[in-house]
């Protein structure tokens, strides 16, 4: 099966129903997306499929065949940060950081559709991502900063 991740297409020999998360982590060694719950409850595994945020634990390899998968590694890197990552660093959002790949991927997809989000829209969009460390106040602030950066860019 051919899967395209961060612009690179690879042949993977996996069961159709293997969740994308485990194709990424264990077959392609892309470790940015995290395993948190496996049942679409926490958002730690969030990636973009054709630009939209999805829970990679709950979408199968077969379902992403021929589509574009982007992980946190694909939106920016320490040397070339995405605006959302910049904002996350400025606000020092992370504590343990384990949820933050997913938070950033949810935020990036959300902001691409809502460049000037209201507080309610932010709350609504980000409530599917759990943070056990409780970084929610900083996530809200960082999203506003990121939105401003993306509007300026």
């Amino acid at each position, binding site marked *: 099966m051919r899967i395209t991740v961060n612009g690179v297409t690879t042949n993977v020999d*996996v*069961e159709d129903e*293997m*969740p994308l*998360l*485990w194709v990424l982590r*264990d*077959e392609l*060694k892309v*470790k*940015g*997306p*995290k*395993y*948190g*719950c*496996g*049942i679409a*409850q*926490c958002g*730690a595994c969030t990636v973009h499929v054709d630009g939209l945020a999805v829970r990679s634990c709950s979408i199968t390899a077969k379902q992403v065949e021929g589509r574009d998968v982007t*992980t*946190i*590694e694909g939106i*920016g*890197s*320490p040397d070339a*940060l995405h605006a959302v*990552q910049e904002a*996350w*660093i400025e606000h*020092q*959002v*992370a*504590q*343990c*950081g*384990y*949820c*933050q*790949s997913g938070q*950033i991927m949810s935020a990036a997809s959300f902001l691409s559709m809502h460049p000037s989000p209201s507080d309610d829209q*932010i*709350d*609504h969009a*980000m*409530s*599917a*991502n*759990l*943070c*056990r*460390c*409780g*970084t*929610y*106040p*900083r*996530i*809200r602030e960082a999203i506003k900063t990121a939105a401003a950066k993306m509007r300026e860019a």
Partner: protein
Amino acid sequence: MVNVGKIARRSFLVGSVAVAGGVAFGYYAVQKPHKNPLLASLADGEATFNPWVKISSKGITLITPHADLGQGAYSMQAALIAEELDLEFGQFDIEPGVPAAAYYNTALGAELAPFRSTDESFQAETMRTVFSSVTKLMGAQGTGGSSSVPDSFEKLRIAGAVARETLKKAASKRTGIDVSDLTTRQAAVVLPDGTMLTYAELAADAAKIKPVKNVELRDPSEWRLVGKEMQRLDIIPKSTGTLTYGIDLDFEGMLYAAVKVNPRQGGELNGYDASTAETMRGVQKILPVTNGVAVIANNTWRAFKAVDAITYDWGDAPYPAEQADHWKAVEASFTDDFLDNEWRADGDVDAAIDGNSIEAEYRAPYVAHQPLEPIGAVIKVTDDRLDIWVGHQMPRFVQQQIAAITGHDVKDIHLHNQYMGGSFGHRLEFENVKLAAEIGNQMRGEIIKLTFSREEDFAHDFPRQIAMARGRGAVSGGQVEAYDLGVAAVSSSDSQGARANLSRPGPDGQLAAGAWNLPYAVPNFRMRTYKVPELAPTSSWRSVGASSNGFFADCFLDELIHAAGADPMAERIRLCDHDVSRKVLEAVAEMSGWGTDLGENRGRGVAFVESFGVPIAEVIEVTNTENGIRIDKVFVAADVGTVVDPINFDNHVKGGVVWGLGHAMNCEITYADGMAEQSNFHAHEGMRLHQCPEIVVRGLENAEKVRGIGEPPVPPAAPALANAIFAATGQRIREMPFNKHIQFV
């Protein structure tokens, strides 16, 4: 000012040794004769050296032995060394170091002493020294109990100062310039003409001279890093998905393991049928482990699937199978037979209450830890060496637990501590490392990564203690006159201690923590604890005893204050007999505009709890909406003596409030048929972003001693919320989780 002489009396010597191409500074301990065996640190003639700073021509490495669970401990430790050593962030690497007795936690033991942390009497200080010596004796290098900052604050700055002065001495020898004319800046010794000799080029010389021990720590007014906003060392990797957690490790040829152990914790496995699992794709081996089965496969998901495809015949739980029976056992423990201690008996409560008793009963359930990164470990066992890569708070205990399984000598067990995706107390336990050792031992030579599925992690999370409180009290003349609180709980310390082969002398302080040490001079004040015989196994959960006791103790006081017709804030301040605590209450009153009118359907509650030596007060504002209670705002004032990093402090306090509120709102673990009924986050959710209030934080610095902030924000959150709900609705909630009684938006 502190100099090394004072520290040396606690057998804490900073020395130096030559290392390849340079010098290392650190803790150098030699056995010193001492009459009191508790105070002897090492066996006869034994000497150890463990570095905090290594400098070679290749660069500077700081060793940060406190584990990073997500709390920023690595950055904090590095900043303390860098402060005195005149390093900037970016000029050094960090390493977690190896497990070693020399890194014993000087602060952990002090918390075990049965004295109010506000008590600085000779007796209290002596007992703290004794308990600290016990942890030293055990070489208890540990991270927990909000102790990383108190443990590190002085000794790491000293390590930095000794290194700095020794490097200056080396520079003086080389240049002939007097040490007093030398300064340091940016990892270099600066000569009077501005020439900079880098530490790297001085390292080899510094290794040849005796370290300078007569150093003085800088005055706080000179601090460049401590107390200033810092960028955490891990913030960029954590914001770009590039930080490697234990679960992310990958090695050539690595295999993937999943386990299923009897969900009736401690129950046996009578038998299993793996015939389907054996035929599944990618499955390489199916192995028995204690009370369960492990599947080794070539992908985590395949291992998860196969272990689920096995059918199991589980034995009974060694504790009551049904939750109702757990509660019955707690209810039945308020008797003299189970009395663990009377912690406080001021005045005469029985006489003061005499027939006019105000009474209430409170409950706190089992709650799971469930950090977002599930537990696991990577292991490789060979006949003469064992390597384990895992994030753990008690590395030396991990070695002992493994040694008991594989028979390796502790010195051949190499633990590589990893960045952790949270802990909250979960990574003080050993289930993952024991199972990894059993698997690795049966597959010597292979490198294997064990990952717990979320469901397996929930099933084997040793939850927070189940607890109840019964309060009696009396009021008169608008004041609280008598306060009598009895707490009955299982001892998570005993449960946890038994698994680590530790026993603790005397009554269990965590049964009383957060309740007996209220700084209130109620004329008649009694606090007793009753130890419930072990039910389901339990463990330390962020803020431990205070997580349930804070709710009981403060809410019951709030009930009495309302019964007296007094103002909740004014009466707490009036009763407060501890200056630093009173200032905390006054600060939160001022921050929250206490006393101003909030309007219709709204209410405000205050709670104060002291835990881990930190007095902390929270005011919560709620609105009673058509769809349930909305938490609008939280104000927090806490005194930690010195705020080392204001940003991390702020983030931690907010996180602690979210943790405390979320679990109080909607989390519990209940047992049915001997198994936890909650298997994943849909059933044990905590707070989500849309429920998160605005949180305003203020750190006060009136206290003498520096304290950690990881746990203290948790205990006041639940009572402040319950008190606010009462103010808004008139409904008094006496049981967590609150959503059994009221709805939240």
